C-alpha cells in the first residue's frame, strides 16, 4: 500500500500536523515547569526576590533570604522528580492494565511501599532512605502483583471496576496494618506520621541522591516500553498478532512503573491521584501515543506537584499543607468525573 494519490498525501499531512504541535506544546510545558520551579523557590513562609534566588542558586547562603531559598532547592527538586515519576508511573499503569482508573495510589501500590517502609523503620531500625528504598520497592511490587491477581480473577479479567475495588480493599487492608504497627510505637510514630501523609517537605540532597539511580532506571524502562504499550492498547490478542511479546512488554512496563512509584514513596510517603489525573489531562493534548504521553506526563506531573506544593505553602501560612492532602482533594473529584464519563459497560 503506497500513499501516492493526492487525497492520501493530504491525509498524511493531517496526521503529521498534530505532531509538530506536540513539539510546541512540550516546549510550552517545559517553560511552565521552569516558572513553577521558580515560584517554588521564591514563595514560602518568607517571600524572597529574584536576586536572592539567583544568589542562592549560585551557592551563596548569606542572610535569611538566601538560606530560605537554599532550603527550598532540594524540596523543589523533589517535587519535580516525584511528580514526574508518579505521573509516568500512572500513565504506564493505565497502559498496562488498559484501565482508565489505574493510579499507584488507587491500586494500593503506594500503600504496599508504605507498609514495607513502616516495617523497616519499626522492626529493623532503618533510618536512612538508602535502607528502605529497597524495602519500598519490594512492598510496591508485592502489592501490585497482589492487586492485579485479585482484580483479574473471574471471567472478564481485570475490568476497571474490579481492579479499582481490589486496589481500594488492599489499600484499606495495608493502611490498617500500618496503623496497627505505628500506634504502639511512640518512638517512631512522630517521624512516621510526617512521612505517612505524603509530602515533599522532607526533601534533602542526601535523599535525592540515594533515590536518583532508581528513578533513572525506572524512567528508562518506562520510556523504552512506550512502543510496547501502544501495541498493548489494542488488546492482547491483537498485540500478539502484531508481533509484540505481550507478557514481556507488560511485565517490563509494570516493573518500570513499580520502581518509579516505589522509589518515590520511599522518600515522600504515599501521594495519590497524581498518576491518575495527569495522564488523562495530557491525553487531551497529546493523544494516546505513549511515546509522547510518557515524556509529557513527566513534565506535567512535575508541574502539578510543584504547584501543589507551592499552594500548600501559601494557603495555610504560616503552616503548610502537605502535598498528599492537596492531591487527594483535587484528584478525587477528577476520579469521580472520570467514573461518571465512562459507560457502564466499560466499567
Amino acid at each position, binding site marked *: 500500500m503506497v500513499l501516492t494519490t493526492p487525497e492520501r498525501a493530504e491525509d498524511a499531512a493531517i496526521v503529521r500536523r498534530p505532531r509538530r504541535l506536540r513539539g510546541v506544546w512540550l516546549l510550552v510545558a517545559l517553560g511552565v515547569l521552569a516558572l513553577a520551579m521558580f515560584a517554588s523557590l521564591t514563595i514560602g513562609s518568607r517571600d524572597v526576590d529574584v536576586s536572592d534566588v539567583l544568589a542562592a542558586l549560585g551557592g551563596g547562603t548569606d542572610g535569611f533570604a538566601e538560606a530560605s531559598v537554599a532550603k527550598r532547592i532540594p524540596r523543589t527538586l523533589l517535587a519535580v522528580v516525584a511528580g514526574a515519576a508518579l505521573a509516568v508511573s500512572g500513565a504506564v499503569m493505565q497502559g498496562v492494565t488498559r484501565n482508565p482508573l489505574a493510579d499507584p495510589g488507587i491500586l494500593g501500590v503506594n500503600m504496599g511501599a508504605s507498609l514495607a517502609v513502616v516495617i523497616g523503620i519499626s522492626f529493623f531500625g532503618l533510618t536512612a532512605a538508602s535502607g528502605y528504598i529497597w524495602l519500598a520497592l519490594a512492598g510496591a511490587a508485592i502489592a501490585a502483583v497482589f492487586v492485579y491477581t485479585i482484580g483479574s480473577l473471574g471471567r472478564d479479567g481485570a475490568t476497571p471496576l474490579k481492579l479499582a475495588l481490589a486496589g481500594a480493599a488492599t489499600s484499606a487492608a495495608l493502611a490498617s496494618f500500618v496503623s496497627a504497627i505505628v*500506634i504502639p510505637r511512640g518512638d517512631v510514630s512522630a517521624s512516621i506520621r510526617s512521612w505517612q501523609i505524603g509530602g515533599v517537605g522532607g526533601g534533602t540532597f542526601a535523599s535525592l541522591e540515594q533515590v536518583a539511580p532508581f528513578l533513572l532506571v525506572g524512567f528508562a524502562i518506562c520510556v523504552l516500553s512506550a512502543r510496547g504499550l501502544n501495541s498493548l492498547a489494542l488488546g492482547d490478542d491483537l498485540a500478539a498478532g502484531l508481533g509484540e511479546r505481550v507478557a514481556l512488554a507488560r511485565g517490563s512496563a509494570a516493573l518500570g512503573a513499580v520502581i518509579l512509584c516505589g522509589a518515590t514513596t520511599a522518600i515522600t510517603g504515599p501521594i495519590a491521584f497524581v498518576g491518575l489525573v495527569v495522564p488523562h489531562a495530557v491525553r487531551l493534548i497529546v493523544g494516546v501515543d505513549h511515546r509522547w504521553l510518557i515524556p509529557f506526563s513527566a513534565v506535567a506531573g512535575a508541574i502539578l506537584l510543584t504547584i501543589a506544593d507551592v499552594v500548600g505553602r501559601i494557603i495555610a501560612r504560616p503552616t503548610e499543607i502537605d502535598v498528599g492532602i492537596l492531591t487527594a482533594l483535587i484528584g*478525587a473529584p477528577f476520579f*469521580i468525573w472520570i467514573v461518571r464519563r465512562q459507560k457502564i459497560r466499560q466499567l
Partner: protein
Amino acid sequence: MTSSALRPTSPTSDLTSDAAGRRLVDEIARNRIRRGRRRRTVMIVLALAVVAVFVLSLMVGQTFYTPLDVWHVLIGEQVPGASFTVGRLRLPRATLAIAAGLCFGLGGVTFQTMLRNPLASPDIIGISAGASAAAAFAIVTLSLDDAQVSAFAIVAGLAVALLVYALSYRGGVAGTRLILIGIGVAAMLESLTTWVLSGAAQWDLQEATRWLTGSLNGASWPQIIPVLIALAVLGPVLLARSRDLSTTQLGDDTAAALGVRVNLTRLVVIVTAVGLISFATAAAGPIAFVAFLSGPIAARLVGPGGSLLIPSALVGALLVLVADFAGQYAFGSRFPVGVVTGVLGAPYLIWLIIRSNRSGGSL
C-alpha cells in the same frame, strides 16, 4: 417437565377443603416455621453473647471485679474502687460499644440491602468518612459540645449521601458507578480529616486515630446520650420498614408490583440509616468495617430469607465489644477498636472480592 393441569381453585378455600390439600398446606407451614427457627435461635444466641461480653468487659481489666460487685455498681450502690472503675470508666465504654455497634450494624445492612450490594456500605462509600470529617472539624477546630457535634455529623452524613447519589445518577444509579464514586468521595473526605487534624495545635495521635479509624477511649455519658436517643427514635422507624426493605431485594419493579412504595421506602430507610451512622460516628469515630461486616456475617449465621436488620445490629454490637476488649487486653499494647476491626475487616473485604470475582458474580 410438563405442567400439571390446574385444579379449578379459587384463592384459598379449595386447598383446605380436603385432607390432601390440608396436608400440603401444613407441610408448607411446617417448613417455613423450621426455617424461622434457625433465625430465632441465632438471634437469641447473639443477644446472649452481647450481654455476656458486656458483663465480661465490666468485670475484667487491670483490676478484676466479681459479677456481684458489678451488679452493686449497676444498681447504684457505692462500692469502693469498683464504682469508679466499673461505673465511670468501663460502663460508659461498654455502653458506647453496644450503642455504636447497634447503629453501625443497622445502618450498614440497610444500605447493603437497599442498594443490593455488600460493597455499598456507608463506611465504604464515604458516609462514615463525611460524618467523621464533620465531627473532627466540629471538635478540633470549632470546639463545639457533644450535641452540636452530633448535629454537624448528621448534616454532613446526609450531605455526603446526597452528593454520592447525585454524582452517580445518570438516568438511574448503577451500583458499580455508585461504589467507585463513593470510594473517591471517601478518599477526599479522609484527606480533609487529616488536614483538619494536622491543623490542630499539635498532632494528637489519639484524636487522629479516633476520627480516622474509630476509638472508644475516653467515652463519656454526654457523648453516648445522643446515640441512645438516635437508636430509640430512628431504630423503630427503620424496623417498621423492615418488610418493605426486604421486598426491595427483588428488584425495584418487582417490589413496586408487590405494592411497595419504593422511592418513599428508599428515602425513609436511607435517612434513618445515615442518621444512625452519623450519630454513632460522632461519638466513636468511623469504627472501620463494622457497618460493612455486620450484614454479611449476620446473613451467614441466620440463613437466607428473613430480615437481617436485628441480627445485623446484634452482630455489630458484638463486633465492637469484642474488638474493643481485644484491643485493650489481648495484645501487648492497647489498640483502639478501629484498628482491630480494620485489621480484621480489610482481609475479609478482600476475600469477599476474591470470592465474588471467582464465581463470576457482578459487584
